[in-house]
């Protein structure tokens, strides 16, 4: 029979409060996320580009080097000069000014679509996941039906039927196809979260469903929601550019990178700067959002933590 040692010597894993023991600094989940995000260099580059874009978009709403609508500022198709660093387009408009104006359109469409589609997707996803039953069946059916329809067809139909080419209409049109992913994600998260102890606890003390959804389930699903929303933004920007390229985007002379690229496509052989500059802006923006989205996902996803 083993006997207890006469003297107790704490092993390395034994919990002994001593003066020299270092307790880890307490951090909130967001601080932890930010700490992880900072380690991701590409995400930081993406964020920096996005910040520049946002500033550009804001500045362009009250100042651009030249009016974005103003034609005949010089010879059409003129290449970059000191006066017009990005050159002039096929109507003699300053490409730099229009690029700035286009940034505003892209930001508004991207953020607007992400917001609207998130609102729709979150609400339907929460309801479907939480109540299940016929609500879930109905929402899932809706999602599946919309998934079966080509995005572009729906958007073109909406634009064609309403005959409106304002930003609001374009955001609405893109959002109507962009909420599906968000709804699916939130539904899955809710299905999982609704079985967790803290929800059971809330329910057991008589908390109303709405309160449980808003205060308990939604905040715990916020991480994946943010990541998903971040990926919606570049998709919406690309979609708007594509619509504008096809001539269904914002009404001229409002600048849009897609429309600028479309204008430049025809003159690719003798004035390549007209298409290259908006195309480059579009590429950089999409990359920036994707880098940031990837970084956020890595930072927010517990499974990625090492």
């Amino acid at each position, binding site marked *: 029979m083993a006997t207890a040692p006469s003297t107790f010597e704490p092993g390395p894993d034994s919990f002994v409060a001593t003066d020299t023991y270092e307790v880890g600094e307490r951090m909130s989940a967001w601080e932890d996320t930010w700490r992880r995000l900072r380690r991701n260099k590409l995400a930081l580059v993406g964020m920096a580009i996005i910040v520049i874009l946002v500033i550009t978009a804001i500045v362009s709403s009250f100042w651009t080097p030249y*009016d974005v*609508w*103003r*034609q*005949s500022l010089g*010879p*059409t*198709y003129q290449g970059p000069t000191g006066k017009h660093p990005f050159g002039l387009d*096929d*109507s*003699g408009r300053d490409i730099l000014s229009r690029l700035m104006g286009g940034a505003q359109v892209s930001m508004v469409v991207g953020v607007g679509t992400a917001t609207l589609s998130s609102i729709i997707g979150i609400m339907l996803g929460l309801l479907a996941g939480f109540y299940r039953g016929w609500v879930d069946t109905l929402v899932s059916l809706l999602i599946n039906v919309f998934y079966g329809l080509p995005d572009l067809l729906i958007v073109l139909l909406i634009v064609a039927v309403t005959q409106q080419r304002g930003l609001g209409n374009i955001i609405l049109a893109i959002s109507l196809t962009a909420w599906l992913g968000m709804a699916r994600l939130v539904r899955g998260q809710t299905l999982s979260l609704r079985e967790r102890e803290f929800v059971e606890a809330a329910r057991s003390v008589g908390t109303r469903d709405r309160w449980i959804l808003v205060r308990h389930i939604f905040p715990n699903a916020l991480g994946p929601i943010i990541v998903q929303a971040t990926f919606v933004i570049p998709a919406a920007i690309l979609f708007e550019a594509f619509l504008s390229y096809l001539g269904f985007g914002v009404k*001229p*002379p409002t600048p849009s990178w897609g429309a600028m690229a479309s204008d430049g496509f*025809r*003159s690719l*052989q*003798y004035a390549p700067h007209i298409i290259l500059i908006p195309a480059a802006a579009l590429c950089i923006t999409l990359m920036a959002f994707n880098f940031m989205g990837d970084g956020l996902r890595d930072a927010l996803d517990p499974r990625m933590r090492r």
Partner: protein
Amino acid sequence: MTGIRFKSLVVTVAAAFVAMACGTNGGPGTGGEELAPDQTLTFPIQDDVQTLDPGHVQSGEDIAFTTEMFAGLYGLDNSNKIINLIATGPPDVSSDGKTYTFHMRKDAKFWNGDPIKSADVLYSWNRAAALNDAYATVFQPVVGFDDTSNGKTKAMSGLSAPDDYTIKAQLTDAAGYWLSELAIWTAAIVSQKAITAGGEDSWWTKPDTAVGAGPFKMTERTAKASMAFQPVANWWGGSTGALKNIKVEVGVDQASQVKKYEASGYDLVGMANQPPSPDDILRYKSDPTKQKDENIYPSARSTWVNFNFTGNSPFAPKAGITPGNPTAGLGQDDGKKGRNAFSLSIDRDAMVDVACSKGATCTKATGGLIAKGLKGYVGDGKDPNAVFNASTAKSDYTAWDPNGSKIKGLQYRFNASATNTKIAQNLQSQWKANLGINIDLAPSDFPTLIADRNAKKTNLSRGSWGADYDHPQDWFDNLWTCEAAKPGHGGTEGYCNPAMDKNLKTANAESIDKALPLYQQAGQTLIDDNVDAVLFYGTQTYFTHSYVKGAGFNSLYDFNWQGIRILKH
């Protein structure tokens, strides 16, 4: 036109034909040119012909082929001069200008060998009047036209044939321009026998029954796919030139046309009033090598901004003028400063740069509404309203509309197309930049625009006219008389100036030499009253391989095929 001038023309044309005849089927051509053994001209068109029936023809592609397949008493040469075809010379015109007597060649034949006699002329002209299509008005001067065109009679009472080779036409009024009208396709002679055999609606679709008297005949046609033509053997009119075959591929879009042209699949592109796209024109203009293939000709089309002179239009001389009632010369013109402002604020050099592929598809207008190169053109720099003057424009605008109420809700109406949209957007930009106003753009389809303009419902709109023949009457009578100003007519401004009308009536009765000063005076009146803001004159572009000679454009139509030849290459 005098008999001497006609004779010299005939001699010149005949000499040219004789020279061309030397160059058939290989060997030396004109000026020591060495012709290719294969004289086959191949070119594409995008839109198929709608009809090749001279009584119905009205679109550019139809005209291009009809004028080669059919002949009338008169035709046009490559410089747009009237030449004798079936007629032996100019008509004998009575002293009051109301009776025309035409003398016909006795050797003129349809390509099937049937002789052409005065009965064929009567049949063709009465038929065209009775069909009452867009160009039936060619015969409007003839007594009895109205009854025939509206179906009351089958033949115009003013037409008669004293013998097999003489035609007599009695006109309601002297019409010095009528000969110009008779030189176009509507007055071409058709074969009653062929039309009966082929069917009234389809005779022109089949090579066997598409019988004309022109230098070429159709040998093959597959709708929306292809057409082929060959010269008529032993053509009564003389030489048919060097070409032995003309192959036309139909339904080829503009981009594919140029692509195949660059791969030597076509000899030229741009025939039948279907030029290459502005993008390709600009691409060729920007490339020193390709530039050599690009041939740009002035075309008889003007484009302007229409102002409405009637109703509650802000541009009207005074409120409430009804269409067709006098609007000028009244001493009061409340709309003139507005019209001035809208015209002077347009930098036409900038517009041509933007809307016309750096000036490749049009040239800026400085000499009135009738296009440069045509009879009635007022002269370079003669339109002071076509000069860009931003400061005067702004002060005129401020005086005219100090609180912006006159342009509230004002739209610029136009028929939607890539070029028209560019023009509209440039106008919008220039008015905004130079007048500080925002004019909404309102595109629509062409029939809607025409209907609204003719109803004088558009206060500011795109206006354009392409001449049918080189005579000022073609412009004034259709666009700027009190008759044209009435609702439903083509005087889209509703502009009516009785004094100008009186001058025009006199001019219309005279020969072109005497009439021209009167027409130019009328043109100056339009400028003085600033009836429209003329923007630019059209051009027609061809891409032509260097071995193709003699192709081009006479400001109205393609050069005659008789002059085209393929050099050895």
